Structure formats: structure tokens, C-alpha cells
């Protein structure tokens, strides 16, 4: 599924958005070590952890986009690092439970239709 579809349907805020990427899965988690162990490549990562380490984790796991929840504030150094490393950053006012549910349904629907 294209990220742009997710952004549109869930009304996500684009913070850093270079190229529209194809996403094959999602992961929801706030512990770096957990995400490093379990997230998959070409995924969207839903988290409240808006800091530079998150960019490092996304790089390691080849996560295409990070979606920050609860309208958390994102420091300028995080934005700069994401631009440097071509990681897409999105944000939403919604909490992780809600937005994960929405994205999950979208992806499940698509799988059902394919």
C-alpha cells in the first residue's frame, strides 16, 4: 500500500516526506529494543518516541516511515536527521491504539481485495 493513501485516509500530518513509499506492514512499539527485534523492512512504525534514536532504529530495520502519535513535539534535530537519511516522518493527534487500528484495517482490507 502506498504511504500517500494512508496519509490521506488517516489524515496524517507530513513532517518529512521525500518520496511516496510502498509499505507492506506496520509495527506499533515504544521500546527501541523491541522495535529493533520485531519490526520488518518496508514498514510504517507507530510510536510516541520522537527523538534521534528513533531515526537510527528506522535505518537499521529499513523502516520507511515513522508515525508519531499523541501530537508529540518533534525536535528540529530529529527532522534534520530524517531528511538526511530519507526517512518519512508523519504525525497524528490520535493515540497509537486508534491510528494503528485504522492503518491495520486499511491494510487488511487491501489484502482481502487483492
Amino acid at each position: 500500500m502506498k504511504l500517500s493513501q494512508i496519509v490521506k485516509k488517516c489524515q496524517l500530518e507530513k513532517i518529512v516526506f521525500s518520496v511516496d513509499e510502498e509499505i507492506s506492514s506496520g509495527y506499533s512499539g515504544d521500546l527501541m529494543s523491541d522495535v529493533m527485534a520485531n519490526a520488518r523492512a518496508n514498514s510504517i512504525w507507530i510510536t510516541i518516541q520522537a527523538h534521534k534514536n528513533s531515526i537510527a532504529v528506522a535505518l537499521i530495520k529499513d523502516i520507511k516511515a515513522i508515525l508519531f502519535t499523541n501530537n508529540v513535539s518533534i525536535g528540529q534535530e530529529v527532522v534534520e536527521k530524517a531528511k538526511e537519511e530519507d526517512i518519512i516522518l508523519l504525525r497524528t493527534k490520535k493515540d497509537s491504539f486508534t491510528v494503528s487500528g485504522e492503518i491495520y484495517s486499511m491494510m487488511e482490507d487491501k489484502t482481502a481485495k487483492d
Partner: protein
Amino acid sequence: MSPQLILEQAVAQKINLISVTDHNTIYHSVLACKQSENMPLKVIPGVELTTREEVHLLAYFCNIDSLKKMDEFIKIKLPKERNKSEVFGYQLYYDIHGEIVGIDDVLRQTALIVGIDELVDFIHHIDGIAIPAHIDKNRFSLLSQLGFIDKSAKFDAVEVSKFMWRKKEFLLGNIYDGFPVIAGSDSHTLEDIGLFFLENFNNTIKDFYSLKSFLGKNKK
């Protein structure tokens, strides 16, 4: 930041007692202890561990053998992954002369697969002391990860950041939320060493045993 340079800097700054606590590894802490034998300062064997909850926990020991037992436990509980040097930098091994002798390619910037209470119990089991690190910081701290300090936890003390230590004008012997409080310099470069230290009145704390006994006396 080789152990040799750390010790020289500490001596130059007139510090009597230090501990070198690397993340999830003991190699240079052991070297620093050995190297300090002929120098006018004492080094307590130590390590900074990351629990499963991503809380940073300091562990101090009476001797190198105990620290090595801690390392055996670290080896079992560390996920078997390689370091990503392009993201975390190179983890270099130094010898006692400060020469680079190797690269540590184990991923250390991660959490051990053990919860904080079990880790504290293990540290006590091998006669060490367990102190959650920089509890006031907004990352990797007891408060950031667990929300509050469990008053029934078996910590020997809590460590606050040097900023909080100064702000609250803490002294050794003070209590914070039911636990004796200390602070570390959090030195990550040689220039940091000596900028922050704890006043050791009457030289009460000289080594691991006096530290343990001092903290034990002040526990509520």
C-alpha cells in the same frame, strides 16, 4: 577515552574515587581497576546495564571477579546481534597503554533480556550494589520508563543527573523518595572529567565497602 587517559585526567583533577561504567560491557572497567593499582586513586569495578524496560541501572562491585560474574550474566542476557557501526559508531578496545587493540562488534546499545527486579536480585546475589541511573532524565530512566519509583524496590540508592543534584543542592547522605541519592558526572569525554564530582566529607567513602556501608546506613 582509553582507561589510561581517564585515570590520568581524574588524578589531575584530584579525584580520589571513580568508577568506569560502560554500557553492557566490562572490559575497560576491568582495565581501569588494574591500571589504578599504582596510582593515587581508587577505581570501583562497575557497569551500566540496560534492563528489558530500557531502564539504565548502575551496578558496582567489590572486585574484578564479581564484575566478571556480572559479565557472564550479560553475555547470556544480551540479544545476539552485531553492532551497527554506521549508526552507533565503533566500539574500540584499548590496552593499558591506550593503544587500540580491537573492535567490539557486539551490539551493546540495546536492552538485556531481563527485567529490572530480577537484575537487581542478581546483582545482590553476587554481592554488588544496584542503583538506577539518572532517574530524572526523560529517557532510559526509572521515571521515564516506569512512571514512578517503586518504594518497595531493593535499590541501594538512586542516581540523579548532575543538573538535579546541583539544583536541589543535594549532599551525600541525602534521601530522595525513600532512597539514598547520588549523582554521577556522566563523563563521556576526557574534558568532562572533573567538571562534576561529589564532595566526600572526611573522606568517608574510600572504596566499594565504605560506599556500600554508607548507603546502607542512610537507607530508610
